[in-house]
């Protein structure tokens, strides 16, 4: 009896550990979760580093014994960083600027994507290929001449120098957005459009009344992506718009603004890494909040580009 039991137990244990075909066993699961946890640790390490270091006092920064848990939570770092970044105001101004540009990019790429998806015209394939090819063209190649174009148009150093290319479908990564809309509008059956046409709707009306209400998820995705990418763009924005329009650009000038606000030698005049990290956290915080609420749309985005083929 006892013998039988141990045999039974052995089989049970083996089944528990290795499963029916190894993939559903316990060991396999442990391996997968371990790998995932360690990879996500690698991924989150910089963020955690930022978060932890932003709360550290100067003593904790120097002390090699303190790595993950600060001995005192220094909220003063954040107070200083808020002062340097001029926070409530600069979030509003950044959002206003980024909102303007990303809404422009979203609407224009919807129109262009619809044009590519639903109509046949000469040279369509060539133009579509060129449109996709603009993705790999670095903006640094065109920046030299674009500066001159913008100067001639009189929009250099204004926000229009970002807005105008966005309206004309040449914004940052606009090829991806157009591709997303193109793929979506291609899935709408042409019969729907034709029946509306028979009822006497013009192409513009069909676009406004049928295509756009159907494409709201694509609108949200494209808007979110363009918002994030315009927010994070610093090179072109600094060059064309100049100044410190966005929060990341303010962060770039953090050291010099800190020096003017708290001159060296005055109390609290020493800029330490903790305050820098607090500034970084504050800069990415709006996007983190946005990501937290809308992560479903971000994560679904790739399926909608149709790269994987149907």
């Amino acid at each position: 009896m006892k013998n039988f039991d141990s045999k039974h137990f052995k089989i049970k244990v083996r089944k528990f550990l290795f499963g029916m075909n190894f993939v559903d066993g316990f060991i396999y699961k442990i391996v997968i979760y371990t790998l995932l946890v360690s990879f996500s640790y690698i991924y989150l390490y910089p963020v955690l580093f930022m978060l932890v270091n932003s709360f550290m006092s100067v003593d904790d920064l120097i002390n090699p014994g303190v790595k993950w848990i600060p001995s005192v939570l220094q909220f003063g770092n954040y107070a200083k960083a808020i002062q340097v970044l001029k926070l409530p105001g600069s979030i509003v101004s950044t959002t206003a600027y980024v909102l303007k540009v990303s809404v422009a990019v979203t609407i224009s790429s919807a129109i262009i994507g619809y044009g590519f998806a639903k109509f046949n015209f000469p040279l369509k394939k060539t133009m579509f290929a060129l449109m996709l090819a603009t993705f790999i063209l670095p903006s640094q190649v065109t920046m030299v001449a674009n500066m001159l174009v913008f100067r001639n148009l009189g929009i250099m150093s204004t926000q229009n120098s970002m807005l105008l290319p966005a309206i004309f479908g040449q914004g940052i990564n606009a090829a991806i957005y157009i591709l997303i809309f193109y793929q979506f509008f291609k899935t709408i059956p042409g019969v729907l459009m034709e029946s509306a046409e028979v009822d006497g709707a013009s192409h513009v009306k069909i676009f406004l009344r049928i295509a756009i209400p159907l494409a709201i998820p694509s609108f949200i995705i494209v808007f979110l992506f363009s918002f994030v990418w315009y927010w994070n763009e610093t090179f072109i924005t600094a060059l064309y718009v100049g100044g410190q329009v966005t929060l990341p650009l303010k962060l770039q000038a953090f050291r010099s603004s800190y020096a003017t606000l708290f001159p060296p030698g005055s109390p609290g005049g020493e800029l330490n890494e903790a305050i820098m990290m607090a500034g970084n956290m504050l800069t990415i915080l709006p996007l983190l909040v946005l990501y937290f609420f809308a992560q479903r749309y971000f994560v679904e985005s790739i399926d909608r580009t149709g790269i994987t083929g149907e």
Partner: protein
Amino acid sequence: MKKLKMSFASLGAKIKKAFLKIWEPIASFYTHKVSVVFEKIGYALTHNFIIRKKGLRLTILGFIKIKITRKNREAFFGLMFILLWIFGFLVFTLYPMFYSLYLSFHEAYYSLQDGVITTYIGFQNYLNIFRSQVLLPLFGTYLGKMIIAVPLVVVFSIMIAVLINNPIKLKGLWRTIFFLPVVISTGPVIAELTNQDATSLPSLQDSSVLIYISENLGPWIANPLETLLTSMLLILWYAGIPILIFLAGLQKIDSSIYEAASIDGASPWDRFWKITLPSIQPLVAVVVIYIVVSMSLFVEAGGILDMARTHMLVGAPDSNFWHGYGYSAAIAWVYFFLMVIIMGIFVGILSIRRKEK
């Protein structure tokens, strides 16, 4: 967690509702007010001496005659829809491209009074790049970094995608974590993280790998390897979107193929190499292009792109160090050329392997 998800869903519905609420008046305003006016303008436009519309015939300037067919009308409306893009492409992309190519063969400086002053110097700018003690090593490091880092990111993202594709709990959470860097990686934040050594593998600083590499290998391979190891996390951060691409590809594989293979006695290892990898292979080319582009477009302080900007902004005829618009354009073109070559090499290797099969 469930409550949160519910609130997200209701939020999405609310956004949709609000969007429709805003959209309805705009659309109805357009149909009742704007399009009426446009129709009148359209009538005036189609009944004048330049364009005359009579029945189904359109006469332009009296001698070009076009028949209005369904096909022609569709082509017209299609072109109207992408007119925005055509115009933008010509003005903001194609013209600047060729103008910067033209400038790269010139010595060009900007002055507020006279605009751009150019003098033709042939290939001098390009030769100067190859003579430069600063730029040439940068280009070398860039090439080395690309050649090592791109396969690394591809392998890493395939690995993560396969892991997430397993029947595991909290799938959404894992996807969220691995996509996070796309949302928060902006130039200044990354620069600051690099400054504070938060971008290398946490245990790497404690080991002596870096010293070993720099002492025992030639600088041509040690430099890219060192930058690679010290910015390992940043490089892995580029895997955010590739992971999603591969994941989307993996979910398209029919599960009955796996079942058939496992009945025939294939181990998970075999199944990965014989089924999973071949079916996501076409996506690798897309991912490679994406990674090369996004890595190349990241601007480091003191990197090639940063140098190009400084040359452009600071360059003046009497400056010994900064050579103005033409030089900057030449740098950008060499960089772009290298980018395309790297993409070509990787995509070429992938397609050779496919042909052998």
